[in-house]
């Protein structure tokens, strides 16, 4: 079937159009919930099945990439901008994650959003997101990828601000969009530079060009690092890396399934996908890779520290996501692209599970998100608890759960990769892993264990979520537990080869493995120690490190910094400098001045016309004298 890939992409779009037109107040709510569910969930599942079919086709053809041309977007002179889809191993993995996790989250949403007034709108948006995400993943050229890239941003914007009656939600959506746009500016420049250098935007061709380029080809050599960094700027926006990470925690304002799908499992990993997809460029650009590794590990560490003290269940998970994305970039930065994708996948499983679990908690508590008002929920919502615990263990790196495998591989390559691995990277990564384990178990404890800190009104109606939600949780927990056994790096290796490891480092592998397990356990123990008993220990600790705590809970005041350094100056420049000084004073002022000059000139001339005949005659006399004098010129 030659239009399979197109169909995969278009199915969610169809869902968006159907639900968007028929099931929203825009179209007058013409259909009921069953229709919305059937379309909203059915089409993504269909897409998922088609992806599987495509994967089978791919395997049948010996993993030769499937290229499917949809249509020509534009042709200008010699430049051809085509819309084409591309399906290879990497695409297959991503598409499976996107449609798979996407589908289950759709199903979860049926329960979660059951009582929302805008049920149809929600599913329309979700489908729209899937459409763009698939476009992003399946696109052959950077242009198509960019369309999806921007499109998922839009969907994210719409979904973060889904409950737009509260302006804060809408504001968070706007912030996400703007921050992404800043990254996109870099993306665009990178794309332009690539096009300028290579004359094509097809990513397979770009990779090929860079890998075959001889060292003497100056265009490629100059631009590779620059291209890499520019594109990475785009990735930092989408994947919430320093310095553009600020939007993701705020994005938790959206409904929880959205956080799970978009802001944990799929969209935020687009940056990772981009770098992995353009591995050809980055292989030729060690400087850019170093930047990526540094930014990645810094983000991982930094976000983990913030996550330590957050009290909002979703905020903890958000910073955790930022941190985990940092891990992925760390892997990318040291050339372990397959590993990054591996972690991307496992992260999709356990983070989706965590978010959905958190959603289940919030759902159960009627909207409460503050950890300090939870506790002891394990007995009341056991399925949620168990699945949440599994996912927590997975992210913390407890073997043999999924997170253990992927994170360990990342740390290993951070240490040993011949493409920029270093002990320093490993140290920071390991410290982050420790913190990850700690704050995740802290979260687990504060939410489910210990004694209840809930008010009676909140506590009384607490109940387990419906099957559509718990079923999904169980599925994801299972994947979180077992996902590590999928040998994804190996599967991807023909396409994304793993970096070589210097011989003399091989014997460290076991040692590091042990250390990382111990770190996970240490995190678990520390959390138990601090949160297992009374809160006195924590309070004492908090008082002891009051300054540090303030910094951490204030998220290092990055938002405030940006506001002071960028936001206010921008408004000041626009308002005071441009509008008041520029437009009103200088430009309009000059014009009004000229107009006034003209008018007053008219007034003066009018006064000269004073009605006295003799003055008139005198004017004439002066005119004659003046003209006669003038006529002597050139005599």
């Amino acid at each position, binding site marked *: 079937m030659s239009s399979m890939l197109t169909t995969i992409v278009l199915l969610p779009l169809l869902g968006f159009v159907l639900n968007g037109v028929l099931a929203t107040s825009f179209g007058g709510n013409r259909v009921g919930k069953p229709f919305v569910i059937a379309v909203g969930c059915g089409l993504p599942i269909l897409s998922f099945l088609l992806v599987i079919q495509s994967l089978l086709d791919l395997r049948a053809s010996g993993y030769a990439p499937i290229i499917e041309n949809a249509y020509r*977007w534009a042709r*200008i002179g010699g430049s051809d901008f085509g819309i084409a889809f591309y399906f290879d191993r990497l695409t297959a993995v991503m598409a499976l994650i996107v449609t798979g996790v996407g589908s289950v989250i759709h199903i979860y949403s049926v329960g979660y959003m059951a009582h929302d007034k805008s049920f149809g709108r929600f599913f329309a948006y979700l489908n729209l997101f899937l459409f763009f995400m698939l476009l992003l993943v399946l696109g052959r050229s950077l242009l198509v990828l960019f369309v999806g890239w921007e499109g998922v941003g839009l969907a994210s914007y719409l979904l973060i601000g889904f409950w737009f*009656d*509260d302006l804060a939600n809408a504001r968070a959506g706007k912030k996400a969009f703007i921050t992404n746009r800043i990254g996109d500016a870099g993306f665009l420049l990178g794309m332009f530079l690539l096009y*300028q250098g290579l004359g094509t935007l097809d990513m397979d061709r770009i990779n090929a060009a860079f890998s075959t380029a001889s060292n003497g080809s100056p265009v490629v050599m100059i631009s590779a690092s620059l291209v890499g960094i520019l594109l990475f700027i785009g990735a930092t926006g989408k994947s919430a890396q320093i310095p553009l990470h600020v939007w993701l925690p705020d994005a938790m304002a959206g409904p929880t399934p959205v956080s799970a799908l978009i802001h944990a499992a799929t969209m935020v990993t687009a940056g990772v996908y981009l770098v992995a997809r353009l591995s050809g460029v980055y292989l030729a650009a060690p400087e850019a890779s170093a930047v990526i590794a540094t930014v990645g590990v810094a983000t991982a560490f930094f976000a983990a520290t913030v996550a330590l003290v957050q009290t909002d269940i979703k905020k903890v998970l958000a910073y955790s996501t930022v941190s985990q994305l940092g891990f992925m970039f760390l892997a990318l930065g040291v050339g372990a692209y397959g590993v990054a994708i591996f972690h991307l996948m496992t992260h999709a499983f356990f983070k989706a599970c965590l978010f959905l679990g958190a959603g289940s908690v919030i759902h159960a508590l009627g909207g409460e998100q503050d950890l300090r008002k939870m506790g002891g929920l394990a007995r009341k919502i056991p399925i949620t608890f168990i699945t949440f615990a599994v996912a927590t263990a997975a992210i913390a790196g407890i073997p043999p759960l999924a997170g253990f495998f992927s994170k360990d591989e990342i740390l290993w390559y951070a240490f040993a990769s011949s493409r920029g691995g270093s002990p320093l990277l490993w140290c920071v990564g390991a410290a982050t892993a420790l913190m990850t384990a700690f704050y995740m178990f802290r979260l687990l404890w504060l939410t489910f264990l210990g004694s209840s800190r809930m008010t009676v009104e909140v506590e009384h109606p607490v109940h387990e979520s419906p099957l559509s939600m718990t079923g999904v949780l169980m599925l994801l927990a299972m994947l979180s537990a077992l996902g590590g056994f999928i040998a994804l790096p190996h599967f991807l290796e023909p396409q994304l080869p793993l970096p070589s490891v210097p011989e003399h480092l091989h014997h460290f592998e076991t040692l590091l493995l042990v250390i990382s397990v111990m770190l996970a356990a240490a995190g678990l123990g520390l959390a138990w120690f601090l949160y297992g008993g009374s809160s006195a220990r924590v309070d004492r600790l908090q008082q002891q490190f009051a300054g540090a705590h303030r910094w951490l809970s204030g998220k290092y005041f990055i938002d405030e910094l940006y506001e002071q350094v960028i936001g206010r100056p921008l408004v000041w420049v626009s308002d005071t400098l441009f509008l008041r000084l520029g437009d009103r004073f200088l430009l309009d002022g000059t014009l009004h001045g000229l107009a006034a000059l003209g008018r007053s000139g008219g007034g003066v001339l009018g006064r000269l016309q004073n009605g006295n005949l003799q003055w008139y005659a005198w004017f004439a006399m002066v005119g004659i004298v003046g003209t006669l004098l003038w006529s002597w010129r050139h005599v």
Partner: protein
Amino acid sequence: MFNAGLPAFVLNLVLFLPLFGIGLLIVSPSDRHDFTRWLTLAVMTVQFVLTAWLYTHFDGSVIGLQFETRLPWIAAWGVSYQIGLDGYNVLLVMLTAFLGPLVVASAFSAITKDVKLFYVMIFGVQFAMMGTFLAQDLFLFYVFWETMLIPMFLLIGIWGGERRIYATIKFILYTAFGSILMLAALIYLVWSLQTTAGVTSFAIADLVKVRLPVEVQTWLLAAFALSFAIKVPMFPLHTWLPDAHVEAPTAGSVILAGVMLKMGTYGFMKLGFPLFPDATLRLTPLLMTLSVVSVVYGACLALVQDDIKKIIAYSSISHLGYVMLGLLSLDLIGIQGAVFQMVSHGLVAGGLFLMVGMIYERCHTRQLAAYGGLARLLPVYSVFFMILTLASVGLPTTSGFTGEFLVLLGAFKAAWPIYQGGHSLPLILAVVSVSGVVLGALYMLRFALGFLYGVAKAPHLPLSDLNGREKSILALIVVAVFAIGLFPDEPMRKTEGAAKAYQQLVTTSRIPGRAP
């Protein structure tokens, strides 16, 4: 008389239909407003249908005029009535014809004062705009160019808002100043043709052959550019625009933003740069800087406006800066991008002004702070609004993306080799202009945020959502926005030849004595 038979005749018909419409209106009764409205709409629709028919018959790969009519007008001066379609104008003519019926329909309920005069003026401005685009004779072009001011002056001045007099006088004095110097340059140019080549002709096709020293070219281009830059408008000649937009009635704003601003960029493309290639080369750093400053400056100003019309007005300055950037890049991609940015801006800004007009009709205020949560109150309205907002932001799949992307790509592509040659200004400008992408999102989303989201409030409650007429208007625009965003290739084939011709003309030196 009509060199190309039926299509040429139809083209003349397209041009003169509005005049015919004025005639019809004059003889029709003046107290039956509905009759007047529908009559106008019918004539405009016929004009659009005919234009669309011509569009389908237009062959974009041909360089030069199609469906040409050329009749001597003032033979002694070499002035002729010469109109025709070419790649430069075909999309803009189409845009003008497309927006015509929509503008008319949008005014059905908004205009209740001096209805007949209003539609006469709409016809007048439509006629002049069509003429400006179609004219292939510089004199004819100038006549149409200036004629356009008069109905616009009245449209703003009679049916405008509180400060309409100030706004309309400012508008006309601004634009007329540019035109005056253009007139001088135009006469000089034709005279130069006469003295150097012995040909007395105002035909643009003849005038692009004039060879002049670069200093003279520079002066002439400066005069032309002043006029066009005011119309575009480019920083620092833009301050008429916010006032004119804010005070104009909806229909006026739509015409202004939708078509009239493109006159400036069209003028640059059709006349300014091709007539004076060497001067263009010389002034490119200046003009390009100004375009990029316009992009940023307009966006920044849009960011701090409280009046919703002003936001869109300043956004126009920003968006048209892109057009200029694309034209100046002299790269085929950039040129095509510029053309599409023109069309896109016409649709999007026109649509947004229509939407502002619709809400203004209901609430009678344009203060952003007066609104909130319209997504709850007016779901249909909000969807259309969101789509147009995103198109304005330049989100992929909308027309805004097509234009912006191609312009930026073209500018960058052209700037990079220059950068490698040692001059970094174009590259810096191209990079800075990318910041417009961010700023654009910033001000439009700020607008949408305050407008659509938050607690529902509006000065007049309850509000009724869009009616069928309004829905149809917006639906047409949205369809066009997506069509151009998703399938720009087909229209691009129509402008292909012209883009190449433009590139060729501007990059070929025409200093006397040098080999061509």
